[in-house]
C-alpha cells in the first residue's frame, strides 16, 4: 500500500482517539475496513451461497453478526455493511467482489464513516440522551440506523456494556462532541 501517504484520522490526528468521561470510554477505531453489500435483483440465493463460502454473515433485519473474518450488520432490505480487520483487508471491496461475483453490488465504505466504540457498565443514560433507540430494551446483536446530533448513524449493541457507533466521517468532531456532552449530562 501507499508507503508515502500517511493516513489522517477523522479527528485530524495520526492516532486513534480514546476519551474518558465518567464511567464511559469512547475509542475511535481505525483498524476496521467496511464495505456495503447489496443483493443484485433476484440473486439472493446466489448471494447467500457465495457469502457462506467467503464467511460473510448476512444477518436478519436490525441484527449484527460477528464472523471469523467478516462481521456484518443489516442496513436496508437486501443490503448489509461488512466489517473486517483493516490490516489485510484494506481493499475490502475488491476482496468481497472477488468472492461474491455478480450476485451483489459491493462498494467500499471504509472512509465514509468514523467508528466509535463505547464502553460503560450501563450505556442507557448516555444513549437515551443521544438517540431514540430503545437501547436497554434491545437484545445483544441489535443493529439499527438512527440519528445522533442530527447525524445519520448506525448503532450496534455487540454485547452488555458496549455500543458501536458508525457516524459520518466528516462530522466526526461534532459527533464526538455530542457524545462527550451527553456523557457529562448523564454522569
Amino acid at each position, binding site marked *: 500500500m501507499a508507503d508515502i501517504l500517511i*493516513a489522517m484520522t477523522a479527528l485530524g490526528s495520526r492516532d486513534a482517539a480514546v476519551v474518558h468521561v465518567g464511567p464511559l470510554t469512547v475509542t475511535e477505531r481505525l483498524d476496521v475496513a467496511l464495505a456495503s453489500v447489496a443483493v443484485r435483483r433476484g440473486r439472493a440465493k446466489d448471494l447467500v451461497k457465495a457469502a457462506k463460502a467467503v464467511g460473510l454473515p448476512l444477518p436478519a433485519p436490525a441484527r449484527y453478526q460477528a464472523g471469523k473474518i467478516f462481521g456484518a450488520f443489516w442496513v436496508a432490505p437486501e443490503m448489509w455493511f461488512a466489517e473486517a480487520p483493516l490490516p489485510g483487508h484494506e481493499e475490502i471491496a475488491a476482496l468481497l467482489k472477488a468472492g461474491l461475483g455478480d450476485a451483489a453490488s459491493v462498494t467500499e465504505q471504509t*472512509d*465514509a464513516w468514523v467508528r466509535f466504540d463505547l464502553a460503560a457498565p450501563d450505556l442507557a443514560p448516555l444513549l437515551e440522551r443521544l438517540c431514540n433507540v430503545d437501547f436497554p430494551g434491545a437484545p445483544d446483536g441489535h443493529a439499527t440506523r438512527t440519528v445522533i446530533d442530527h447525524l445519520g448513524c448506525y448503532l450496534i449493541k455487540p454485547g452488555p456494556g458496549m455500543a458501536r457507533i458508525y457516524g459520518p466521517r466528516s462530522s466526526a468532531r461534532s459527533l464526538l462532541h455530542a457524545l462527550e456532552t451527553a456523557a457529562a449530562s448523564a454522569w
Partner: protein
Amino acid sequence: MTQSHRIEGGQIDRGAVLRFTFDGLPYTGHPGDTLASALLANGVRLMGRSFKYHRPRGVLSAGSEEPNALVELRTGGRQEPNTRATVAELYDGLAAQSQNRWPSLRFDALAINDRLSSFFAAGFYYKTFMWPKSFWEKLYEPIIRRAAGLGSVSLQEDPDVYDKGFLHCDLLVIGAGPSGLMAALTAGRSGARVILADEDFRMGGRLNAETLVIGDAPGADWASAAVAELASMPKVRLMLRTTVVAAFDHGIYGAVERVSDHLAEPLPGKPRQVLWRIYAGRAVLAGGATERPIAFENNDRPGIMLAGSMRAYANRWGVQAGERVAIFTNNDDGLRTATDLQAKGVDVVAVIDSREGGALLPGIRHLRGAEVIDSAGRLGLKSVTVRQANGRTEEIRVDALGVSGGWNPNVNIHSHHRSRPVWDASIAAFVPGADGPPGLLVSGASAGVMSTAGALQTGRDAAMAALGLAGAAPDLPEAEDAPVRITPLWYVAHGKGRAWIDQQNDVTVKDIKLAKQENFTSVEHVKRYTTLGMATDQGKTGNVIGLAIMAELTGRSIPETGTTIYRPPYTPVAMGTLAGRSRGREFKPFRLTPSHHWAAEQGAVFVEVGNWLRTQWVPQAGETEWRQSVDREVLATRRSVGICDVTTLGKIDIQGTDAARFLDRVYANTFSTLAVGKCRYGLMLREDGIVFDDGTTARLGEHEFVMTTTTANAVTVFRHLEFCRQCLWPDLDVQLISTTEAWAQYSVAGPNARRLLEKVVDLDIGDAVFPYMGAGAITVCNGLRARLFRISFSGELAFEIAVPTRYGDALLREMLSRGAEFDPVVYGTETLGVMRIEKGHVAGGELNGQSTALNMGLGKMVSKKKDAIGVVLSQREGLVDPDGYRLVGVRPVDPAGKLVAGSHFLEIGADPVAANDGGWLTSKVYSPHLGCDIALGYLKGGDRKIGARMRAVNLVGGTETEVEIVSPHFFDPEGERLRG
C-alpha cells in the same frame, strides 16, 4: 424576618434554614418549601400585580395552575420571567422579583388602570385604537405592551444548557398521586417497564396535602412507602420534577424534567432541563384535579385562595394562610379545609356554605345558604362581606379566605388529540370523553373519581387493563370513599363590582356578559374576545367558570356550550428547553473536508455550505482584502495549476445490470451510450421539467457508475434516486449507496495540471489514456487505490483525483511538495465561482428551482430519443417560449462599471417598472482575466440579444450600470485549453 405564619407539621426539613429574597427583602424558609409557601410562612401575601389592571394579587393555588403569583427568578442570563411561585422549589440564595409593576409592588403607578377599568373592558383596544390606522404599530401597540403584560426578559444569553432525550416503557404513568402510585405499583409488580412522572418534587400528589388515612397510615406515609417500593424495582423509573406536557401520535409523550431548577445553578456539565420524548406502549393519566374558585366581587385580593390550596399549605408546608380564616364553599371538600385548619389550631372564623340545609360542622360557625358578596383590603384581605340565607349582610374580619367552587378533573393530556371532554353533572365538572389518544387510559380524579379509594382502584384497574394483566388484582388498602356533594355556584350575583374569573388575564363576569352582549357566544369566541384562558396558566382555574356563566347567559347547558380545544403544552415550556443543545455553535454539526486541517494551518477563510465548512479562499502574506486573494488564486490557476477540494460534491455509487437504463431515466440526456472509462455531464430534471441538479457521472464498469451531484443537492438527489429505484421502477436491478465521504476528491486545474499529477500518479495519464472526459481507477504514491476523472468546470485542462478520505490530507501535501516547481495554488470556493462564471457554467444562482434546460442554454441536452423524468413537462408551451429567459453573459460597457447580482435588465430608456423587466443577473464576479466585473443572467429572448446594450438596474441598492449582453462563455469559448 421570622416565619410568623409557620405552624406545626408539614413535610419540610426544619433542621435546615434556606435564605432567600423577594424584591430585595431577606426571608427564610426550609427545604421542602416552595417560594409561595415560604412567602406565606413569612406573612407575605402580596406577590404580584395583575396583567391589565395592575391589581394587587397574592397566591391563589398551591400548584402549577397558579395564575397570580408569577415572579422573576434569578438574575442576569438566568433570569426567568413568569415563574409560578407555587412550583418554584426554594433553594438557599434564591432571589425573586415581583413583576409587572412600577416603581414597586406595593405602590404601582399603573394601578391607575384599575380606576379607569370602565375604559378597559374586553375588546377595548380593538374598538378604541382604530384611527389613525398608522398609529397602531408605532404608538398604540408599544404603549399598550408596556402597560400590560407579565414578566420581562434580560436579553442576556442563557448560560445553561438543555438536553433532549428519548425514553421507552411499557407503561407511562402521568401523575404520582394515589391513583398514579397504585397504577405504577400494579404495573411494576407485574414486571413491566414503567415510567412514573410527576411535576412535583415530592411524589404523592394530594396525599401530601391531606390528613386522610390509607390503610392504617397517613396518606403521605403510604405514598412514601409506595415510592420506596417502586424505587426498588429495576424496571421502574421514577421521574420527579417532570411534567408530561403533551400527548403526541403513536403513544409518544413530551415531558420536561427540571433537573436543576431547584438549584442556584446547574452542577458542572449538567443541563438545566431535559425535554424527554417518551415512547410508551400504554399510558395512564392520573393527573388529579384542579380546584376552581367562585367569582364574587373583589374576589382577587391577596389572602383569598383556593380552599384546597389553603389546606395544602397547612398540611404539607406547615403554613397558615392567615390568622383569622374563613372558608367559602359550595361543596364538601371545602369543609375539609375548615376541619383540618381547626385541628391545627388555626382560627377558623366562619364557613360560608352556599348550599342550603344539611349537617353543620361541629365547633365552627357554619353559615348555610350564605355567600361572600364582597371583600375589603387594598394590599391584602381585611374582611369579607357575607350575605346570609336570610338576606342579612355581615362584614367578617379575616385575613385569609379559602374558596372552593368544586374540582375540575385534569383532562388536558387526554384532550390533546381534540377529544372533547363530557359533562358529569354529579361532580359538576368535565370528565374525559371517549376518543382520547389511543392507548391512554385515565384514572383517579382525572377521570372524575374523586375519592381516595376510587383513585386507588381506578389506578390499579387502569394499569391492569393497559398491560392486559390477567389474574387476581392486587389488594387495595382501605381509604376514604366519600361521595362528591356539590351544588354548583359559579358566581355570586349580588354585588355591582367586578368579580374575577380568570385572574391571570383580568377577565371578569362582566366581560363574559359583554361578550354575550356582542354575540361572541361560542366558547372559542369568548376566549379570543375576553382573553379568558390564555397565557401561562391556560385558564386552569377560570375556564369552566367562564363557560358556565356563558351557558347561563345564553340559556344553553354547560355541555352544549362546551370547552375550547386543549393544546400542548400542559404547562409553559421555556424556549431554551425546546431548542436543547441546538444553539450557537452547536446549532448543527459541522462537516470538515479532507483538506480542512491543512487549510486551517494556512489561515484559510471558511464558508458554511450546508453543514460543510469549505475553504473560501486562502490569504497569503500581504493580502489585506479578499479580492486580492481570489484574483491571485484565479490568475495562478490559469497560469499554471490550482488545486481545490471538491469532496463536498455528492458522490453516489450506482451499480446493477440496469444501472445504465436507470441513469437514462433519471437524467435528461443519455448515459447508456457512455463507454466504460468515460464520464459525461448530466442534467437531472424534476418531474415538472425544471432543472433539479447537474453533475458528471462516470462509467467505471459495464454495470457500475459513480454519479456526482452539486454539494447542495447531494442528499436530495440521493433521496430522489432511492425513490425512483424503490417506488417507480422496482423492476430494475439497481443498487445505490452514497460514497461522498469515502473519497477525498481534488480538482487539479490549469495548464500544468497533468504535469503536477504525474508527480503523484503511478500510471501514464496522457491524452491517449486519459483523454478529455476520461475516467478510471488508478494508483498514486506507489500503489494507493485512487480514481481519476478528466473533467473541468474552470475551462482549464483539469482533472479530479480521488483517494480514500484518510489519505486526502497527505495527498494534498504531497501534490504541493512534489509539484512545487509548478508553483501550485490551493483555491477556494470564490475562485471556483470566478472560473466557472468566466467559463459560463451554471451553478447555484442559475439552478434556482425555476429554470429549465432551455433557459440555461442546455436545451439540446434534453434527449427526445428516450423518456426521462421531466422531459415531457419541460416541453410545455410556457417553458419553450422563444421569448423566455435565456442564459447570457453580461459585462459593463465601461470596464470600471460595477455589476450587482440580482439587478434587473431594462432596455435603455425604459421605466424601471415590472412591465419592462427583462430578467436579472444571477451570478456576478470580478474577472481578473478580463479585468472587469462579469455576470451571468437570465434575459428574455437573451440568445437573440447578444451584442445589445441594456441597463442593469438595482432598485434596492439604487445602482444602475449600462451593460453589454455577451456570450456566457467569457473565457476560451472554443474550449482549447481544457482539451489540453
